[in-house]
């Protein structure tokens, strides 16, 4: 592996490259520092509509012409809209890298937002909102996110029916004009390519693209709302989501949080899988995970079970969190650490994973973070560190969502019952 490169171009664009000379593909991600949090409240769903419509006609290409141009180089690409950013990710053979960047520059800098494409995408977003109602996990995710993060950071990418109705082509164009510029782009590249080629391509394609000031890098404010809410729905299972505030990705305690979650849910020997599924047979799916918007962190527990087992599952989940501070063993700690470290190595064999790793470092830390540095921090975590973390970040204020046919009946968790139309 060559040395990781990290630079800012005069256009304002920030980029990093992890050269992997023996690889036969290149993966890159262009991250635009604009997301759902930047939507006007009356036009929720706007950011994703922008993302979906950017490639539906540009100055030089029709929608299908652009898709054909990407296919001509065999580009495997995805895009997504988050609360803080939009991402455009692409994997190509190295000889097609420059062309892939050129085509992305075209859709990011010269979109036309044709009226018909805007109307169709609004129509599709409304249909996808209906489809979300058929996806229990997606729906629970939407509900817990809104409750846990508050009205801005807790937005859903599809918006709401009534806000989608209001969105016009002008809204899309204004959002794009305000947020799309080189100063708000972070590019991460990994694979079989020389850093010089990356710099040349990004310079050629993004020089002079709007504002060069480094904007959009401020932390997001969240409004945590601890309460228990039940959402009635005719389902086979009751779907449970629980969360409470944790630490953000740059916090000194972040590696401790990572290891703690590893002990809870890192593998099949994790406490949740062991206690909830293996010993009691309460669930098929149970998990713990974290989310880290810039400047904040949230710890989640989730499980799905049939309604008569819901209360027992809920109390077992929380009991396992509470028990952590009392009886962690060194062997558990070692397994959790090994899981995180080994994962870096195995997944690191995939170029796309290396690109995502770099993209995450640039976004959260503003620099590439050597794998050795991350590994050393995880390996340094002790049982005492975990006990301290659990004391400083207790699960004493919980946000709980249940979705299914029956409210959660559990001591200490009085449910606010919400019925009908809650997802709109």
């Amino acid at each position: 592996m060559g040395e990781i490169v990290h630079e800012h171009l005069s256009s304002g664009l920030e980029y990093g490259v992890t050269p992997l000379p023996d690889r036969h593909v290149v993966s890159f991600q262009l991250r635009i520092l604009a997301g759902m949090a930047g939507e006007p409240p009356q036009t929720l769903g706007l950011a994703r509509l922008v993302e979906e419509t950017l490639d539906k006609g540009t100055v030089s290409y029709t929608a299908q012409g652009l898709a054909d141009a990407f296919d001509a180089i065999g580009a495997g690409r995805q895009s997504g809209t988050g609360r803080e950013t939009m991402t455009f990710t692409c994997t190509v053979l190295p000889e097609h890298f420059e062309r892939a960047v050129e085509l992305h520059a075209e859709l990011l800098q010269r979109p036309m937002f044709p009226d018909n494409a805007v109307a169709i995408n609004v129509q599709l977003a409304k249909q996808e909102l209906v489809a979300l109602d058929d996806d229990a996990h997606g729906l629970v995710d939407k509900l817990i996110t809104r409750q846990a993060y508050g009205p801005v950071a807790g937005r859903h990418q599809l918006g709401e029916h009534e806000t989608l109705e209001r969105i016009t082509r002008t809204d899309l164009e204004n959002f794009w004009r305000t947020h799309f510029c080189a100063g708000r782009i972070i590019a991460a590249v990994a694979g079989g390519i020389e850093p010089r080629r990356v710099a040349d391509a990004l310079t050629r394609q993004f020089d002079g693209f709007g504002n060069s000031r480094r904007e959009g890098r401020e932390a997001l404010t969240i409004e945590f709302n601890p309460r228990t809410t039940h959402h009635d729905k005719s389902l086979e299972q009751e779907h449970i989501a629980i969360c409470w505030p944790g630490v953000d990705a740059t916090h000194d305690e972040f590696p401790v949080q990572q290891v703690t979650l590893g002990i809870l849910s890192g593998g099949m020997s994790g406490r949740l899988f062991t206690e909830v599924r293996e010993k009691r047979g309460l669930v098929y799916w149970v998990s713990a995970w974290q989310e880290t918007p810039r400047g904040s962190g949230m710890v989640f527990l989730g499980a799905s079970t049939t309604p008569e087992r819901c209360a027992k599952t809920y109390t077992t989940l929380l009991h396992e969190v509470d028990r952590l501070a009392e009886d962690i063993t060194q062997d558990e700690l070692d397994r959790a650490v090994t899981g995180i470290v080994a994962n870096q190595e195995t997944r690191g064999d995939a170029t796309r994973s290396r690109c995502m790793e770099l993209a995450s470092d640039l976004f959260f830390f503003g620099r590439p973070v050597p794998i050795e540095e991350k590994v050393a921090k995880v390996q340094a975590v002790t049982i005492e560190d975990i006990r301290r973390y659990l004391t400083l970040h207790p699960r004493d204020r919980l946000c709980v969502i249940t979705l299914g046919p029956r409210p959660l009946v559990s001591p200490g968790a009085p449910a606010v019952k919400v019925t009908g139309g809650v997802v709109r």
Partner: protein
Amino acid sequence: MIRMNEQTPYTLHTLANGLRVVIERMPGVRSAAAGFLVQTGARDEVPELAGVSHFLEHMMFKGTAKRTWGDINIDFDRMGSTYNAFTSEDRTVYYGWVRKADIGKQIELLADMMQSSLPPDEFTTEKNVILEEIAMSKDHLEHVMFDFLQERVFAGHPLAWPVLGYERTLAAMTRDQMWAYFQRRYAPDNMMLIVAGNVKPDEIIQLAETHCGSWKPAGPIPPRIAPPVHRGTDVLQTDRFKQQVVALTFPSIASTDPRIETASAAASILGGENSRFYWNIVQKGLAPRAGAQHLDYTDCGVTILYAACQPDRCEEVLAAIRTEAGRMCDERVSEHEVERVKNKRRTSLAVEAEAPYYRLTQLMDDMEDYGAPRTIEESLADVDAVSANTIRDYLKACPINILGHLTSVGPRNWPKRN
């Protein structure tokens, strides 16, 4: 009998008990993946034991003569393995992806699991887990749709029942019945050990001899029988979901057919990304999701064209699907369309070549379909051979402009049943 080909990175070896060992050397990587492929799945079950293959897969994690379930889980996690298992209609797979230094430990653990004791005291607890999995599946529109489609298209054949089985068959199933199935199907002459990564083949073969060499073969198993593919219309009306899924199913070729890459390309042109369905159904605002899929087994295959839409738009969505299917058959696809699909396939093959786990899954497909591993170059040659002419010939043999089988699942009783 070791067969090493200097031109390829593969080593094939068969133990005296019939266990086949397949190894792909990947010198440039830091990890390795190992898996046991057992040639058994839902289609090998008798009706009263529907779901036994999948339930057995869960029970294989529950203990051996050497390890409790807790030991198994802990030993996987001590290596930091990325591991799991899955059951389909025609295979059951157990795998682990580890740092290259741990591949010996990984193979030992997987091999020990293959000699499960199916602990009786874990049977009921795990049955509850399966019942939860079935409940979860019933809350998922596409699972419900797919199970219903298989049930009706393959009616009268084991491919008709869900891999998870039914509550009634699970409830009645005993540990003795499962044990008998296990003894018959998990024999070395019905299994393969497949390894990919930065490994030394002779060491892997030695590991296989040490950990699997004493397993007793069970002799030939009954051959599978290809299913009928039924025509007609079947509706499952359910108020659980707000959308309606409509699907058309047509007989097609098996995964072993030399035209399989052509069939896959045809499905991509019709219903993949940047496809005819995308531009003429999704981007016309008719349905947020529409696609085409080639579902294949070693002895049969079907093409499925589907869309999820608002219930009141079923008629126009189905008409649009049929129009595009008709165009595929009646008008030759352009070389431009073919080339686009082939280019994407080339990139995906390059990605697949990078990581041991990706290669492991492909090797499993290759061994089942061709009886031998295939190099990326061989796969690329198959991709290169696809053309507008091969697609025309394939669609002539496996038309999708006929009535086929129509499945409809959702809140609307459409097409109307009597």
